[in-house]
């Protein structure tokens, strides 16, 4: 009987507001340590938080994109625990009345839609950054130590808690990529996992297909790329299945995935006793988002990536549709005319992607002309044209003017030279190794810097070799 993975994701999205959540220090990444702090985000005695209006609006916007209810009245709470990256000794977060709750996020897959329930999306402040120094390899002699940089401390986060509806590591990756694309399109976050502006933890358990209720779950942390999320969850699912099939029991614990080794190890936990003593933050008043604020946010939420994938899937296959949307290229795809939609999609996802040009800056109909003509112009001319397609005033004309070399009078001298230079291969071909034809074609293309028409070259080569 088969096993069913049960995966609940917890995602932190760092908002790219100009200032922090509760003070007006700049919210920037990569500055010198402790150069973006003030008495408030250093928790000096007597300081008080003042919420960032934009962060609240963006949390509402994200909540709406996740199909959530926006709370008519929500509160901030204090989550109390001690850690050097938490200067007040508590994190200002939300508890029983978050900004947004009870939503759904549709994740299209090759075999149909999967609807992932959203428990809640709430606002909170980020912790500071600690780096480990000292010890054997460290810069400080003797004792090990950590250094705390409060630049990141107090920057705004939206924490999204999903229902345990995800069923595979692959599905988790897709959920996360679509969520990323969504927040990027909303313009509220860079959502870069490598930089930590998008973070994902996963609660993983497995159960027998058809089994009611849930078994013991483990929490996977530190998966800082989409691939690691997929690999980490897959590895943990296999680990748990292995334990059950060996007649063992899964232990509830927090785990760390090591992408290099592909292994999973227990993580030392923050507090021996988790008792956060939540209570309403007395330094802050309730949030009651005004109607016009919510409506403005609603108006700014466009068609979601998942929906667009479903729409495009009819024209190209799922993978191309998924690729176009999650790479932000489907906008350009729509602007490019052309009968062969798959060809358009392929060029956008391959050759054009390789050039690294900004899809938004490309003129659709000019690109359309290029793609139609790609068979009849030299390969190199085609690639040069793509690379230039984002330049302003770009016109396909010049590149379309370049035509391929196809008439015998130009090709024969080149071909004869190559045959003369490779007698051995000619012998072998004539002896039946017809696979060598590709070798000769390659040589001709090289000789003509890709300007030769492959069909013509094939023809002439066959004639001459069988002569």
């Amino acid at each position, binding site marked *: 009987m088969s096993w069913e993975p049960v995966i609940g994701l917890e995602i932190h999205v760092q908002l790219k507001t100009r200032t922090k959540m509760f003070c007006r220090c700049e919210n920037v990444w990569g500055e010198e340590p402790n150069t973006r702090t003030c*008495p408030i985000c*250093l*928790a*000096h*005695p*007597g*300081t*008080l*938080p*003042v*919420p960032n209006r934009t962060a609240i609006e963006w949390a509402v916007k994200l909540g709406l994109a996740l199909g959530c209810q926006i709370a008519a009245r929500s509160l901030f709470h*204090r989550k*109390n625990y*001690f850690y*050097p990256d938490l*200067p*007040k*000794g*508590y994190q200002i977060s939300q508890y029983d009345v978050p900004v947004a709750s009870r939503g759904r996020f549709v994740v299209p897959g090759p075999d149909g839609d999967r609807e992932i329930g959203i428990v809640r999306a709430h606002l909170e402040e980020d912790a500071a950054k600690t780096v480990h120094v000292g010890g054997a390899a460290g810069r400080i002699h003797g*004792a090990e130590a950590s250094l*705390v940089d409060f630049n990141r401390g107090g920057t705004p986060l939206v924490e999204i808690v999903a229902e345990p509806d995800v069923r595979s590591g692959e599905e988790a990756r897709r959920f996360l990529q679509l969520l990323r694309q969504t927040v990027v399109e909303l313009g509220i976050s860079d959502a870069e996992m490598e930089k930590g502006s998008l973070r994902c933890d996963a609660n993983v358990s497995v159960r027998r297909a058809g089994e009611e209720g849930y078994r013991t779950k483990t929490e996977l942390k530190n998966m800082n790329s989409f691939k690691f999320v997929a690999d980490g969850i897959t590895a943990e699912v296999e680990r748990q299945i292995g334990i059950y099939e060996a007649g063992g029991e899964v232990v509830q614990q927090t785990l760390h995935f090591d992408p290099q080794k592909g292994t999973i190890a227990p993580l030392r936990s923050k507090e021996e006793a988790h*008792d956060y*003593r939540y*209570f309403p933050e*007395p*330094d*802050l*008043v309730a949030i009651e988002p005004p109607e016009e604020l919510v409506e403005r946010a609603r108006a700014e939420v466009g068609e979601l990536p998942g929906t667009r994938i479903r729409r495009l899937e009819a024209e190209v296959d799922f993978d191309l549709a998924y690729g176009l949307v999650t790479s932000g290229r489907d906008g350009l795809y729509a602007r490019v005319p052309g009968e062969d939609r798959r060809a358009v999609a392929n060029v956008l996802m391959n050759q054009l992607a390789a050039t690294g040009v900004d899809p938004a800056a490309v003129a659709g109909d000019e690109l359309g002309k290029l793609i139609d003509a790609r068979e009849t112009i030299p390969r190199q001319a085609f690639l040069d044209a793509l690379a230039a397609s984002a330049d302003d005033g770009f016109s396909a004309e010049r590149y379309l003017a370049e035509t391929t070399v196809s008439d015998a009078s130009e090709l024969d001298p080149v071909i004869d030279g190559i045959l003369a230079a490779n007698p051995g291969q000619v012998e072998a071909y004539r002896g039946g190794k017809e696979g060598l034809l590709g070798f000769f074609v390659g040589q001709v293309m090289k000789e003509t810097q890709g300007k030769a028409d492959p069909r013509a070259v094939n023809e002439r080569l066959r004639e001459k070799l069988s002569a």
Partner: protein
Amino acid sequence: MAPQTSEADRTVIDTLRLTAEEAAGLLGRGEVSGDELVGAYLAAIEARDPELHAYLHVEGERGNGVPIAHKDVITTKGIPTTAGSKILAGYTPVFDSTVAARCKAAGLPILGKTNLDEFAMGSSTENSAYGPTRNPWDPERVPGGSSGGSAAAVAGGLAPWALGTDTGGSVKQPASLCGVVGLRPTYGTVSRYGIVAFASSLDQVGPLTKTVRDNAGLYALIAGKDPCDSTTVELPAPVVIPEGTDLTGVRIGVAREMNEAEGIDPGVGERVNEAIRLAEELGADVEETSLPRSVDYGLACYYLVAPAEASSNLARYDGVRYGHRAEIDGDLTALYSRTRWEGFGAEPKRRILLGTYALSAGYYDAYYGQAQKVRTVIAQEHAAAFERFDVLVSPTSPTVAFRIGEKAENPLAMYLSDVLTIPSNMAGLPGLSIPCGLSEGLPVGLQLIGPQFSENTLFRVGHALEQAIGFDYVPERLT
């Protein structure tokens, strides 16, 4: 009181008598310079503070305004701020609290920082890590607390006026015990930004002064919305400096439980009743009323809500960014736990443990949650009373100043001295304490409570009674 004049016919500044209003007059008329005024107070501090120990730090700023003393929970940029705790020894703020900034902007030079119960937790100023303050009326007795240093400084002529903070009665009660005027404002009318936090939903800054008019003047200067404190509001009406003694039409309620509570000294009850009769003579309508649950449950409610918030507010003292850090080779948890045990005194530790317990899993609903509901009940009971009355009167403290050490060993007995100031504080209401005479040669305080934003009424009634009572705020032993 006009300043005395010496043979040399130059103004002698009698800091024991001089009110802030008179001091401003002397400065305004150029009869004394700012330096002379500050100098007079520094001289008084030098003469009497070794005995009283009202100050933790004397700054002696020069300036041309009426100088002021700040309770040492009021953050002052570049001037040490300790909250009376060892855990903040050596801490020098890099920013100003909003009230300190407003006083600075008004040109009030800082005389110094006054003593207090550690983190404003106490009713006698004996809980200061830096030693107790003594009562100017009797150095064997406490000045009350936690703003005992500010109250003693004003009563002892060491400052013309001062700021304190009031969470459960920490301005009203010391004002009462030192024979000065103390206001605990409506919650939200004075900024808490830069006030070392004790219990965020209760803390308010309030003035301690010799007269009600001075008190109104200082309140006007510090009150009003602050963008740095989300819990503040703009005053619905400007502060009116009170004049006159007519109380015609003022409806005064006398809550039975607040005036007949057990533990009220007979002498205290008599002075308060005399004041109530004076109010009637001035035209007020006086009637009995009742606040049964507010008085019965107020104390218990307070000692759950305040410690719970304190346990969280005091979590930031971990020896990482500022303040005391224990000398210990050990892991982080060991460092935290040793640092905090060494740095905090007995009372803060007691309240941190109590508050942590009241918030911890399994106890929240029975303790903190229930206490917040009791608060609602107390607020409703007061709101009902203020449909019939403009002001409620009672003793501020059940007793006059008690002896140093008398209650030090018994926290619960100490807590009882706030039993009459706490209920209205739980409801976020303003209260004014004015001296209404002596008992056993020690000052008795009359507490006037009003609805939210009724400070002008409290000042008006307080001023009228102050005139009628004619209390001499100069301690006899110092004249």
